C-alpha cells in the first residue's frame, strides 16, 4: 500500500470534519485553471456538511420545525462534529441524535425539575422521530398471516415491528400537526404514552392510557397476555377479573385489528 495514502486520507477526512484547521493544502493538492487548491477542497468541505445536515433535517422534520431551521442546523452541525457517521448507511445518521441532545443540554447538571422545559420537549420529539424512522424499515410481519379475534390469548405475542414509548410532552400529536402543515404551538407538558406499530408498511401511532401502556410493557417483558394481565391487576390494585373483562370487552379486538399482535409459533 502507498505509505502516503493512509496519511493523505486521514488529512482529507480531518479537512472535512474540521475545515478551519486544514493546513498543507498546496502541498497535497493542485490548482485548476479557475480555482486554487483551497477553493477546490472547499467544494468537498461544503458539500460534506450540507449533505449530512440536509439528511438530518429529513429525518427530524418536526424537530426542525420546532427549533426553526437555523437553530436546528446549528445543532445538527454540532452533533455531526461530535458524532460523525459510523455506518455505511445514512439511515443510521440520526441514531445518536436524541441521546446527544440530552447529553449536551446546558442545564444537565441541574435537578430535573429545574431544567428547561423546551429542551425536554426537543429531546422527546427527537426520540419519537427517531423511533418512527427506525420502524419504517425494521423487520416486520408483512407477508405473514395476521391473527383474528378467534386466536386465544395464549397464542398472542407482540408483533416484531412495534415500539412502546412514554414522553413528557404530546410529541406524537405535535409531529403529525407539523406533517399536516398546521404550525402547532409549543405544547404544555403532559405525559403521553404511545404504541407505534407498522402494518402493511404503514406506521401508525396509538395514544395509550397509562394502564394500557403498563399492560403492553408487561406483555413485552413477560411474553404472556395472562401474566401481563395479572401484573397490571396488581399494579393498579384492581381485581384480576375486572381487568380481564376490560381486556376482553374493550381492548383485545381493536388491538388485534390494529396489528399489535402476531400469533405465537409452535406449541404453547
Amino acid at each position, binding site marked *: *500500500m502507498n505509505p502516503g495514502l493512509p496519511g493523505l486520507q486521514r488529512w*482529507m477526512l480531518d479537512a472535512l470534519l474540521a475545515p478551519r484547521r486544514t493546513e498543507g493544502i498546496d502541498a497535497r493538492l493542485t490548482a485548476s485553471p479557475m480555482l486554487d487548491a483551497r477553493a477546490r477542497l472547499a467544494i468537498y468541505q461544503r458539500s460534506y456538511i450540507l449533505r449530512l445536515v440536509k439528511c438530518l433535517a429529513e429525518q427530524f422534520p418536526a424537530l426542525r420545525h420546532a427549533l426553526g431551521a437555523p437553530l436546528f442546523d446549528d445543532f445538527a452541525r454540532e452533533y455531526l462534529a461530535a458524532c460523525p457517521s459510523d455506518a455505511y448507511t445514512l439511515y443510521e445518521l440520526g441514531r445518536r441524535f436524541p441521546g446527544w441532545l440530552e447529553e449536551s443540554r446546558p442545564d444537565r447538571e441541574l435537578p430535573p425539575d429545574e431544567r428547561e422545559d423546551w429542551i425536554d420537549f426537543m429531546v422527546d420529539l427527537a426520540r419519537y422521530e427517531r423511533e418512527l424512522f427506525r420502524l419504517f424499515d425494521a423487520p416486520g410481519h408483512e407477508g405473514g398471516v395476521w391473527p383474528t379475534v378467534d386466536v386465544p390469548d395464549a397464542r398472542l405475542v407482540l408483533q416484531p415491528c412495534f415500539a412502546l414509548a412514554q414522553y413528557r410532552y404530546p410529541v406524537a400529536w405535535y*409531529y403529525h400537526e407539523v406533517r399536516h402543515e398546521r404550525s402547532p404551538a409549543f405544547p404544555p407538558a403532559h405525559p403521553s404514552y404511545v404504541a407505534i406499530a407498522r402494518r402493511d408498511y404503514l406506521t401508525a401511532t396509538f395514544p395509550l392510557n397509562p394502564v394500557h401502556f403498563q399492560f403492553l410493557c408487561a406483555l413485552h417483558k413477560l411474553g404472556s397476555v395472562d401474566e401481563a394481565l395479572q401484573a397490571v391487576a396488581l399494579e393498579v390494585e384492581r381485581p384480576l377479573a375486572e381487568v380481564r373483562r376490560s381486556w376482553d370487552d374493550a381492548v383485545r379486538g381493536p388491538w388485534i385489528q390494529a396489528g399489535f399482535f402476531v400469533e405465537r409459533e409452535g406449541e404453547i
Partner: protein
Amino acid sequence: MPDLGLGVGLRNCHFGHILAESPAVDWFEAISENFMDSGGRPGHVLRQIAERYPVVLHGVSMSIGSTAPLDRGYLARLKRLADEVRAVWVSDHLCWTGIAGINSHDLLPLPLNDETLRHIVARVREVQNILERPLILENPSTYIGFRDTTIAEPDFLRALADETGCGLLLDVNNVYVSCFNAGTDPVAYLDAFPFERVVQMHLAGHQNCGTHLIDTHDGPVCDAVWELFRLAWQRSGGASTLLEWDGDVPPFEQVHDEVLRARGFMEGAFDRSRLTGSAPAREASISTPVDFLVPGVMESNRLEAG
C-alpha cells in the same frame, strides 16, 4: 455482460407508479445501501420489481480505495441482496468514503499512482472473491487534483480492469464534470478510456457554478453531455445506459422520457463544437445528493385517535 438497454435509477418516490403501471422501462438500478438491510417497504418493492425487470445494484459505501479494512459484514449483506434479486451486476465507485470507522458519505477521490493501483487491485480481487462475481467500478466526479497523481484516470482504470478482470461503469456526466473542473479535455479522456471494459454507462444532470461544475443529479442531461454520450455510445458499441435523477425528482414518466432521449444521440457524427455550455448556475449545490440515500421515510405515518 448483457446489453440491458436504457434504464432508470430506482427511487422511492416512484415505487407506487412502477408497481401500478409496470412502465416499459428496460431495467432498473437500485442503490445497494438503501435495500441491504431493509425489513420494510423498500426491500419488499425491490423484490417485486426484480420479478418484472432486470435489476443492477449500485453502491456508494464499498469504499474500495480506503486504507481501512474492507467491511466484510457489508460485503456479505451486499452479496445476499445481489443473490436475492438476481442482480445482473454489482457496481460501486473508484473512490473512498471514510476511514477509522467514520463514513463521510461522499465519493472521495484518490491520488492515482502505482502504489494506489496495487492497493486497489488487491481489494477488488478480495471483493470479487466474496461477491463471487466481477465488480463494476465507476469513474467518480472529482473536484480536486492530487500532487501525487501520476496516472491519468482512464489509464488507471484500464490497468485496474486488466489486473482484476473488473468491469467499468463509464459515467459520461462525471467525465464532463471532472474534466471541466480539472481543465482537461473530455474527448481526450474518452480517447484513452478502455471501452472494451465498459459494461454500463451513466447519464445525469449537473450544475454549473461558474468556476466549476457539480454533479448534482437534479435535472435533465445537458446538451454537451448528450454529445459526449454520442461518442461514448458509439465507442462502447452500445453499452447498457442508465439515467440517474436524485434531487428534485420529477414524475417517473419525465425521468423515463429523459433517458429515452438517448436514442437521438446514438447515431450521427460527433460534433466537438457542441461540448460547450451546460446547465445554468445555481448556488449551494451539493455533490453526491442525499435524496436517493434517504428516501421519504417520514411520509408514511399516521396518528390514531386517542
